[in-house]
């Protein structure tokens, strides 16, 4: 407690407000929910389909709270078949959405290693030989793309612009209010029932103690709480802790996606609607994408999965090496970064599905396990789950039924189970299991699952992420002597630096020739691309739970993997430092931790709580 403040009970100051439906997070799932619900809230004669219980005489009061400072600050370039989105907008005109266009061409390219530093297994090297006839510019474009990977006929979207577009329509209707810059701390749980949400405290110090302008987070009570705060959202994860996971389900597979939006150089030959997918480089486990928007702009980036067993898996440095691959650099050289960002992807898919409903609450979107890990598609699936809940809520409101678990199961969960979303989710459930054993096995497993629609899979047990992370010495055993690793570690610690640059330099990765436009330092990417900011008066949202666990950690992978360099080595102790003004809220620290949670083996020693700030770019 700050010494300027007398001790008091925050609940004495806490405000409370009533609504009918409160949504947590404005991502594609909640956008789909609101886009479905709002047009149906009023009858054709101008009367509401149901009367608000919070404000009698009015239509149902629908509120949505979004952590980011603007509803367009989500991170993702999207290529999607858009079935769910088109079902919501049958007359969708992509020209009305900035940076949107139809898919015109798709390619999948295997990237050979042009620098000689990539760790390619014997199996990968053998597989490379089969592609030699197609090799050009250190890459081989696959002559055939499996149907399960194809997105044509589909569309390219910018997540930021798409959500701005949908949000403007939702708010313009006057039937829902979407409040940005307002993180939600947790669901209000009473027994088995969720009665609403509590917003975060404001006017607090880094450690959460009240300061002069203290304002306790308001309680927003509602008959239905719609949880769509994504895979690292504190409300959804809190429900997972509170109610557990269905038997056999767990969330052990993750990836961090790091991306840029780039003004392509003049004369670039890439046509709008082009979709490139890459694999094989900079490390075999890292996949890449490049989508070409109208007006010579591209969205591009990489995915670094949790089964890439590197204890220094930095997405940023790898992103730069990936961009500089000759196959891509021929198009990108001379380009300018407009935007940059990162986010965690929950790649457990259906296996990571939590309970979808309960008394007074329902889960939608990525945090509810919608991502299809076989097709690499998540936005349309998230949207569809939201739209399905929207239709369910309309039905329940019209019928005057309560938002109980039983009613939500019938109206929402059953609808989801009977849809293409469930069918494809089941097909893909085991598609990624092979990657637990290696890249080649993983690719074979995906092909089997995809071509047999999930009938045949290379299935197997999945380790928790922290159980997979090797020591530095193990990882670099063929490249860097253990003694030298110790010297590098000590030198970096003395300078307060992370290890990945020094180790990658030593392992043969060339230095990045900064050009100040596209190839810039990590901190410049935060500033020029992400425009990362954090509002004052909020507590740190990244917490290290057990200092002893940090003391046991020998890799500090949280520091190496931090997308914003917000987590750094602490020269005065084992617990890393956290600077929330650099945090992009990707949540990678949550699963990039070598230590188990003190009480829950499915969690780690990092807690990712509700926090303010993050990316300030809507061009993502």
């Amino acid at each position, binding site marked *: 407690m700050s010494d300027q403040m007398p001790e008091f009970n925050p609940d004495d100051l806490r405000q409370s*407000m009533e609504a009918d439906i409160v949504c947590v997070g404005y991502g594609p799932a909640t956008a789909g929910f609101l886009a479905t619900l709002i047009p149906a809230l009023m009858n054709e004669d101008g009367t509401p389909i149901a009367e608000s219980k919070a404000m009698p005489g009015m239509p149902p009061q629908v509120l949505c709270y979004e952590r980011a400072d603007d509803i367009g600050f989500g991170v993702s370039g999207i290529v999607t078949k858009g079935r769910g989105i088109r079902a919501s907008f049958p007359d969708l005109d992509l020209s009305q959405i900035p940076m949107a266009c139809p898919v015109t061409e798709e390619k999948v390219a295997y990237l050979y290693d042009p620098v000689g530093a990539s760790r390619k297994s014997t199996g990968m090297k053998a597989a490379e030989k089969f592609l030699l006839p197609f090799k050009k510019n250190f890459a081989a474009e696959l002559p055939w793309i499996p149907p399960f990977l194809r997105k044509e006929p589909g569309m390219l979207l910018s997540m930021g612009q798409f959500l701005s577009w949908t949000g403007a329509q939702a708010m313009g209707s006057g039937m829902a209010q979407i409040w940005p810059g307002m993180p939600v701390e947790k669901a209000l749980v009473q027994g088995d029932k969720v009665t609403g949400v509590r917003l975060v405290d404001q006017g607090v110090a880094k450690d959460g103690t009240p300061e002069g302008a203290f304002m306790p987070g308001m309680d927003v009570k509602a008959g239905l709480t719609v949880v769509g705060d994504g895979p690292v959202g504190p409300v959804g994860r809190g429900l997972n802790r509170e109610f557990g996971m269905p038997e056999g389900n767990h969330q052990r597979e993750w990836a961090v996606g790091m991306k840029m939006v780039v003004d392509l150089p003049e004369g670039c030959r890439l046509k709008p609607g082009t979709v490139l997918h890459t694999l094989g480089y900079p490390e075999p486990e890292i996949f890449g994408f490049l989508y070409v928007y109208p007006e010579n702009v591209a969205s591009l980036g990489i995915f670094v999965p949790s089964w890439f067993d590197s204890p220094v898996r930095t997405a940023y440095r790898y992103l730069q090496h990936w961009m500089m691959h000759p196959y891509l650099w021929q198009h990108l050289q001379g380009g300018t970064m407009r935007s940059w960002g990162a986010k965690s992807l929950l790649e457990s898919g259906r296996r990571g599905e939590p309970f979808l409903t309960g008394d007074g609450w329902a889960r939608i979107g990525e945090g509810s396990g919608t991502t299809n890990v076989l097709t690499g598609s998540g936005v349309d699936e998230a949207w569809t789950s939201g739209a399905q809940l929207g239709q369910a809520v309309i039905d329940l409101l019209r019928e005057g039924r309560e938002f109980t678990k039983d009613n939500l199961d019938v109206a929402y969960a059953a609808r989801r189970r009977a849809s293409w979303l469930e069918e494809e989710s089941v097909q893909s459930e085991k598609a990624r299991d092979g990657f637990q054993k290696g890249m080649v096995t993983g690719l074979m497993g995906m092909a089997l699952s995809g071509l047999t629609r999930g009938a045949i899979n290379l299935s197997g047990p999945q380790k928790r992420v922290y159980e997979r992370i090797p020591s530095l010495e193990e990882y670099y055993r063929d490249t860097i002597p253990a003694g030298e690793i110790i010297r590098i570690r000590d030198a970096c610690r003395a300078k307060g630096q992370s290890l990945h640059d020094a180790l990658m330099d030593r392992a043969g990765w060339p230095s990045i020739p900064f050009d100040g436009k596209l190839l810039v*330092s990590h901190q410049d990417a935060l500033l020029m691309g992400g425009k990362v900011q954090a509002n004052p008066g909020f507590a740190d949202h990244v917490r290290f739970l057990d200092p002893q666990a940090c003391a046991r950690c020998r890799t500090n992978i949280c520091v190496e993997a931090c997308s914003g360099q917000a987590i750094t080595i602490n020269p005065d102790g084992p617990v890393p430092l956290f600077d929330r003004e650099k945090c992009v809220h990707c949540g990678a620290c949550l699963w990039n931790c070598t230590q188990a949670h003190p009480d829950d083996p499915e969690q780690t020693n990092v807690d990712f709580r509700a926090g303010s700030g993050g990316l300030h770019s809507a061009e993502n």
Partner: protein
Amino acid sequence: MSYHIVVCGSIVPDPLQTLTPVDGPQGPALKNEMMLPAVLDPWAGHALYEAANLAARHADCRVWLVSLGPKAKLQQVMMAVAQKAPFELVAVDGPASGFTDSFAVAEALAEAIEGIADLDRDKLLLFGGWQSASRGAGSTIQMVAERLGIVDQFQGVDQLNITDNGLEVLERIEGGSWLTSTVQGAPAAFGWATGELPEPPNNPQVGMMNMKTIMPALQKAKPAALGNGFGVNNVSLPQVVRETRVVKDMPVDDIARELVDWIQG
């Protein structure tokens, strides 16, 4: 004494955005202006928070926010601003890129203020950002006041206190000093500098209350015909090459040496 406080304040691109001037069909504009995230102009923000604070401390005060900007962007920004302080919105649909003539902007704002039905001009305190909507010239709020017939005007205001003698104003003047003035009362105009108040926390209840006027105001927003008051021959951005490093515990001498090397280079 109660006051009717009218705050003129519009939107600007969110800080750190990459602004690229382009030649549009109606003169210069910002590339992707409608795609860039926007915030309430910080100068005007200070004025709004000061207005809300003053209104909270004196009975029967009312606060209007008169905002000239693209309607769609105003709607988006208002969802954030509305949580900060109670106000009634008066929206005018028009450009806010900075490539507008402050005379024409002042005309549109004054017209919007004259259209506020319940406004008592004898109680009017006109607030705005000191350098807002004028590319730093500080002319817009001054011209709005002139059009409204307000002769008592203060620029670079950091503090306003209601005393028994009237309104005591602290204005920034040259040399890092302040000038203290007293004006008997309304009407008066104040171009705010940074004021003294921090940005208020987001209060959802304030937001809910404000939304009752914001959405109708946006629906009723009339387009402003600002015309082309001046011509722009050329607009360009300085070329910047960045290479930021994070270095801890670097000796001061080394920092100085690196700066000198950079300047000489």
